């Protein structure tokens, strides 16, 4: 019997402490065959199991172009993430996926891309950035704006440093006012403010944004003000999920299942949805 709820087992090869409450697991499937067959697109998510405590949904934060490991980042919040937090290098977890749709990076070829991420929302964006950087010649100008509450909340420090060092990418890191440390060299200010200051051209540009609802709420008007069309603004929605397969009936917003039709939506699509997220 083909059990769609059965996860593949994966071993934690490395645990990276990103910040005081965020961790990244570097995972490798126990079974090499599964590891090679596991393909996904940037933006897709998976269900990670901590056996004994249940399953939780996070995006896959590593790029499909870097096949050695699968990475996932999570903030310790609920039952499953607390349980995952207790695991160490060498422990086994379960992965089922990938599920959902992805950022349409094939359609965006030949365009400029503006990435905007806030907080833990950097996870799916990082996957996309890495994918784009690995295929750098197919895309035009790339701007990354990444904001966090404080310097302590910034994650992916190594990756971010790599982006900053690259000449072909413009990277702006910002922390909320009051969150900066004395040695902080980046910007200080909320993401929408920094975006306004940067004022990227909207011509032939797609914006990929991901972050807390309040950031999205204030960033979208700025983007629209800069001349971005609704169809060119991509963001992700999250809802509570159990199955990830469109069966369990809790992630829907109107008649749209976030697990099947999402998590990536354009702003134009979101505008059509009822206010229930």
């Amino acid at each position: 019997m083909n059990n769609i709820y059965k996860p593949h087992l994966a071993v934690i090869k490395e645990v990276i402490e990103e910040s005081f409450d965020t961790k990244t697991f570097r995972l490798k499937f126990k079974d090499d065959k599964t590891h090679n067959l596991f393909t996904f697109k940037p933006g897709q998510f998976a269900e990670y199991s901590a056996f004994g405590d249940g399953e939780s949904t996070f995006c896959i934060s590593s790029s499909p172009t870097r096949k050695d490991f699968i990475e996932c980042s999570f903030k310790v919040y609920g039952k499953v993430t607390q349980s995952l937090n207790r695991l160490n290098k060498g422990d086994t977890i379960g992965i089922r996926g990938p599920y959902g749709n992805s950022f349409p990076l094939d359609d965006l070829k030949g365009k400029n891309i503006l990435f905007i991420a806030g907080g833990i929302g950097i996870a799916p964006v990082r996957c996309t950035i890495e994918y784009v950087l690995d295929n750098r010649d197919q895309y035009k100008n790339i701007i990354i704006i990444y904001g966090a509450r404080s310097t302590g909340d910034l994650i992916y420090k190594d990756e971010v440093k790599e982006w900053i060092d690259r000449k072909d990418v413009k990277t702006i890191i910002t922390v909320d006012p009051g969150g900066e440390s004395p040695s902080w060299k980046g910007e200080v200010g909320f993401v929408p403010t920094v975006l306004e200051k940067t004022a990227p051209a909207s011509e032939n540009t797609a914006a990929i944004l991901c972050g807390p609802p309040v950031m999205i709420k204030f960033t979208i008007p700025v983007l629209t003000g800069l001349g971005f069309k609704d169809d060119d603004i991509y963001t992700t929605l999250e809802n509570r999920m159990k199955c990830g397969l469109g069966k369990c009936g809790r992630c829907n917003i109107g008649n749209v299942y976030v697990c099947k039709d999402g998590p990536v939506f354009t702003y134009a699509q979101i505008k059509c949805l009822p206010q229930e997220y």
Partner: protein
Amino acid sequence: MDKEKWEPKIAAFVCNWCTYTGADLAGTSRIKYPSNTKLIRVMCSGSVDPVFILKAFERGADGVLVSGCHPNDCHYNAGNFHARRRWDFFHKLLDFIGIEKERLQFSWISASEGKKFADVISKITKDIKSLGPFKAYKQMNSEFTVNFPEYNESSNSINKELQ
């Protein structure tokens, strides 16, 4: 199961201030008592929730003991008074639902009563032994359970099974 060889599993929720110290005293005084009881230290007999007891039964305990300070000796003034009323009801409820009274017992043991601690443990062990294993509850556990094949952690057999 051979009743002679079978040893009961008993969970005891004991108060930190009296019974646990009493158990210490029993130990330092070299008083012998049966080793079937697993002590779980809690801060007060009043802080033991009935679900702890149910959980103990669920996980295979044959009997449960809750023990605290004597009335008026509570470290928190009134914890054991509250507990006393509560356990009265819980005991009656379990009795009505069909769980033998002896499966769940209560006692007051002070820090100086090492001998009493040993006696209580001996008594409850004897009681539970004569009742036999708590089959009724264990049968409920067997619904939806499977027996795992033995496996060696170092071997790679799991991978093969998965394919």
